[in-house]
């Protein structure tokens, strides 16, 4: 007997119920019903909640009225951090006029030498102050991972309440999960040496969020 058959046989013996096909049909029905667990009641508006939580996770947050203002703000912010005025961007934000703000931007996957990565996001989750990024041809995951600084553009209209709402949006807009969904909540961190929290373990040391526009 193969390992698969043997293990499943053991599991079936333990489960101790007949009619696997009937139980599978019930399971499929149950999955389609999408019963959520206890849901949080988020006080106040989602935008304020998102910003507050993101800051508590050691991200910095800037609010801008529209996309036009983004390149100049990024240039000023990088200069203030004494970081080089260059970045790798995902394709979905490559169309902004970075050059006009004095930024040398390249789009595509990040390499080790990239100091700053700029990405958009699929949506953001107010409950925890979290970004939701989807991997894809236009949105390589390495941009939010390899550079020491990650800048993310977050349209205010794409801030949802919970992870469940983010999944609902994903299902309605994309149908299925991409290869990688990455929920990102602040800079990478570790506490593995004497429980002392250090920002910048393997991923970015800094996360700067630019929230654009107002909630619809």
């Amino acid at each position: 007997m193969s390992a698969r058959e043997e293990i499943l046989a053991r599991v079936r013996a333990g489960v101790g119920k007949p009619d696997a096909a009937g139980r599978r049909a019930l399971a499929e029905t149950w999955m389609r019903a999408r019963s959520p667990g206890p849901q949080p009641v988020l006080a106040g508006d989602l935008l304020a909640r998102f910003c507050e939580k993101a800051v508590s996770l050691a991200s910095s947050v800037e609010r801008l009225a529209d996309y036009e203002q983004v390149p100049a703000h990024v240039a000023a912010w990088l200069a203030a951090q004494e970081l080089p005025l260059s970045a790798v961007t995902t394709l979905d934000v490559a169309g902004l006029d970075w050059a006009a703000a004095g930024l040398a931007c390249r789009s595509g996957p990040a390499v080790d030498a990239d100091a700053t990565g700029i990405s958009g996001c699929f949506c953001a989750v107010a409950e925890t102050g979290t970004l939701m990024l989807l991997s894809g041809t236009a949105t390589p995951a390495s941009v939010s991972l390899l550079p020491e600084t990650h800048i993310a553009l977050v349209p205010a209209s794409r801030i949802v309440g919970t992870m469940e709402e983010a999944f609902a949006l994903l299902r309605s807009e994309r149908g299925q999960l991409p290869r990688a969904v990455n929920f990102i909540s602040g800079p990478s961190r570790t506490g593995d040496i004497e429980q002392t929290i250090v920002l910048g373990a393997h991923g970015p040391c800094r996360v700067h969020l630019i929230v654009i526009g107002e909630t619809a």
Partner: protein
Amino acid sequence: MKAGHSQAMFFQSRAAEKVRNPVLQKALQKAKPLFSGKRAKSMAALPDDGLEFEQLRDACAGIRDRALTDLDVWLEIFEDNARARGAEVLWARDGDEICKLVIDVAQRHGVRKVTKSKSMLSEEAQLNEALAAAGIEPVETDLGEYIIQLAGEAPSHIIAPAVHKSLEEVEALFAKTHGRPQEERTSADIPALTREARGVLRQHFLSADMGISGANFLIAESGTAALVTNEGNGRMVTTLPKLHVVITGIEKVVPTLEDFATLMRLLPRSATGQTISNYVSLLTGTRSEEEVEGPTKTVFILVDNGRASLVGSAYQEMLRCIRCGACMNHCPVYFSLGGHAYGWVYPGPMGSVLTPLYTGIENALDLPHASTGCRQCSSVCPVRIPLPDLMHGLREIQHERGLRPWGERLGLRAWAWLATRPALYRALTRLAARYLNWLADGSGRIRIFGFAPGWTAARDLPVAGNRTFFEQYAARKRD
């Protein structure tokens, strides 16, 4: 699977050594209030969002139970959906089969170096040793795992594997491995040491041919592996190499993304007191043809190694475990010993249940008994595992199989014989009271007591007088 590499039978001698290790004790003393304090703070904030811990853990336990009571069905749904997205799904009966499957995949793809994100199953299988023996270099990339890999040790905690290591020990390991002179370090240098490891491990990430990770959950509806990390190493390992192998236990499956979202409200809070971990990744299938990064091949290895035998048993509740570490973070025994004394992969209360079940009850006789019965573990468990009751059940099995020491069995039988004969019991307790009082010799305490040498090794035995309550009560009634 039998004892394997378990050292749990040496619990007593290891414990004796650990309580006397000042470096370890200092590290544990420092970690203890941090672990419990952070969790308590995050749980206390739940009502601000209209949530309650008790209600959430009912929901989380319910989700895990739903998966476990039809585990065969959910595994098949997971497998079908994972395959539909291009992943390969393999099954392993035990640790040896895990090693065989991983090495086989690695060799077929000419892999020379593997980067690993933390996987307790790879510890169950002793995969690193097997990889090295096959000429493949395994590199642990979680900072804590990296430290203990350099030290040639096993993790002593499931989420803080190097909690037992001091700053000085880390400095010595890094100096030796990274080829630099050793320096005097203070806690202000911890960011610099972290950065040093980041630089070294970054090169490994970029040059590895294969990534190995565990999975916090398998999501059946989409055939997805969920990976929860803070450092970002999990993302590196699953993004950069061309080949990704996920090794995970068969019990980790949950039905839907909604279920996963519910569990995520308690997992980080229970583990580190975070409302959410820095990176929560949902990994499904392989990269598409147009994509320029991500693995071209994803392999799931679904592992039994003792789990299937728990399904439908009196210990099925143990399979709910989501590996948050809260039980050990609140265990007075764990914080007196650290994890290594437990002798196998999983320490603390969950280990005291899992080690006997997975490696043989007769090979871990101390673990179910090395508990004060304080129930702190079950009061914090996010999936309501009745850990003390499960430990108790294992004690009963030991008794039924005649595995308890003869002195204990005889003593209890004599005690019960006496306790069911009240007149004789009264007479003997009167004698005992006089004997204790004589030993105390007017000092109100006994310093060395032959009947309880363990007790008086570290404490006095307070003695109140030479007459029992029933003796005095009878005298009062007569007056």
